[in-house]
């Protein structure tokens, strides 16, 4: 079983609908992707991982610590942070402030420090702004640090969301369709960035992605969800050739044609 992050036998039902059925998934290092057709349960799985949903069955563990039952902010404080499929930035705050909010869980200051402006407050606050600059640099947004998030172009917003998630100093990053709406060129640049993050910061990434070309190039491992069940998992090349995967994506008849 995976030591960093492991989810075992996750089942989640909404009324009569079973969104996830006995899904097991884990990651130790590198980039693991989750793919699948629309409505397969990928985002639901993320919501279970990050504490937004409590699964009906199954358990989730991060560095050996069970996550089920913890609040989302507690899970983030432990070192698991995410981005959202439909960008959820703090629209009326600047890019820098968005990143600063991401650091909230790492700030160890009380109300007293803030009110009397203690020396530790000034040190910490200065450090936060410096770090925000570094993170914005990393995603290429330093020049736009003082721009209000809602005025940024779409691609910048996606990258800002990534910087904000990185700000919480995660050991595991969950990215929900980070290239959605990007051109192929932008997507490739982003994937290069992700690879570099894995290499330089030593973080692990779980990726939900629709862009097949991107997934197959960047992932160390790919899991395929269909109708809430995991139907395949393995290195990208194996998964691509798996007949059940082809069937899930193209339909049974197309799969038969492709096989013959």
């Amino acid at each position: 079983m995976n030591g960093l992050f492991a989810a075992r036998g996750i089942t989640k039902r909404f009324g009569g609908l079973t969104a996830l059925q006995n899904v097991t998934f884990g990651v130790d290092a590198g980039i693991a992707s989750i793919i699948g057709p629309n409505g397969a349960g990928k985002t639901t799985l993320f919501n279970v991982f990050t504490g937004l949903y409590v699964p009906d069955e199954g358990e989730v563990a991060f560095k050996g610590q069970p996550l089920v039952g913890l609040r989302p902010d507690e899970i983030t404080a432990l070192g698991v942070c995410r981005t959202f499929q439909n960008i959820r930035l703090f629209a009326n705050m600047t890019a820098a402030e968005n990143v600063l909010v991401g650091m909230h869980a790492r700030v160890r200051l009380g109300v007293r420090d803030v009110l009397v402006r203690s020396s530790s407050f000034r040190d910490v606050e200065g450090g936060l702004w410096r770090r925000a600059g570094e993170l914005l640099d990393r995603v290429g947004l330093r020049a736009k640090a003082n721009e209000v998030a809602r005025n940024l172009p779409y691609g910048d917003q996606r990258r800002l969301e990534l910087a904000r998630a990185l700000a919480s100093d995660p050991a595991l990053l969950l990215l929900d369709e980070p290239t959605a709406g990007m051109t192929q060129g932008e997507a490739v640049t982003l994937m290069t960035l992700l690879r570099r993050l894995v290499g330089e910061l030593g973080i692990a990434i779980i990726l939900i992605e629709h862009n097949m070309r991107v997934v197959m190039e960047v992932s160390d491992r790919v899991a395929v969800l269909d109708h809430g069940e995991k139907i395949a998992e393995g290195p990208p090349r194996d998964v691509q050739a798996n007949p059940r995967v082809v069937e899930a994506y193209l339909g049974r008849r197309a799969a038969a044609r492709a096989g013959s």
Partner: protein
Amino acid sequence: MIHSAAAVAFVALSSAGVAMFPRSILIFLVFQSSVVFVYLARIPTWLRLSLLATALGVLMPAIGTYNGYYLEVATQVGIFVALALGLNIVVGLAGLLDLGYVAFFAVGAYSWAIFGSPHGNILFGSTAFPLPAWWFYPFLVFGLAVAAATGVVLGLPVLRLRGDYLAIVTLGFGEVIRVLANNLDKPINVTNGPKGITPIARPPLPADMSYAIGFYFLVLLIVLVVILVNRRLEDSHIGRAWEAMREDQLAAQAMGIPLVRAKLLAFACGASFAGVMGVVFAAKQIFINPESFTFLESIGVLAMVILGGMGSIPGAIIGATVVTVLNLQVLKGLSLWLNELKNAGVTVLGYNLANLPTQLEPAKYERMIFGIILVLMMIFRPQGIFPARRRQRELGK
């Protein structure tokens, strides 16, 4: 440079004008706007601070000796500035719509009223009350603490609510406090019901200082502290957490912000400012009863925050100033003037104003004109007079 000269001249001329015509409301308005001008003008910080200190610390009390009512207006403005700044934290920064804010003001007021008047004897069956007048000062802290605790008590059950639902519950809470104050004269007489509590002790002041001047400076001092606290909170991880919560609660939580703590802190901070001012209000008025803490007061403070610009400290200050001055002076003055015209029997377009039916009494226009101003503001400047500006900041290398 030209701004600096204009600011100095503006303050000097307008205060001289007030000294010459102490009964003219218009000239006092000019003086008030000169203070606002200094606050907003592009002048060096040292000049701004020294001009404000002169205008508020020296000129205003001096004007008060010519016309005591002006000092009363200034004191009321101060009280409402503190209330608006408190509500600004809850509504403007944290995005929690609170329609019962005046309840915390009431809690602060009653906490001193009960202990600072003979009424405490009825409640506790002793003869120790009223407490010696100097207890007023510790009670500023006590009122703050009680109001903050009340804020947490209100916050706990409504943590899961958002938007409209939260507004309704806080509205109900505000009414509950008022109705409690109205009815807690039996079985145990805590608030003395609709009759209210009087006489409430006033604090001891430095020798020779009149109460009008004393309360003015006390309110000014509290407002300065409130502004300082507000600015420090806003410009910290706490303020950023509140704003993030306002922008997107779910994303804020996913970024590691504990929503429960952040919300309770917002409620407690907002409430504490109202609590302090409640204590001051009770002592200043000598008499309080539930009538002072109606739903309309909550709405009034909310109107100040919205009119000034939500989430903006200068906005809340200016909103509170404008609304208070509008209500106490401009609209009052207008209706007095109209009344004079009516009594004098002036004819307008061939119609003798003396024949106006009582339903159209000029005094009745006050609320209507105030309402029209609010509506026009929301149509033409929905972001408020002085909307929150994003801090521009250099990132360290």
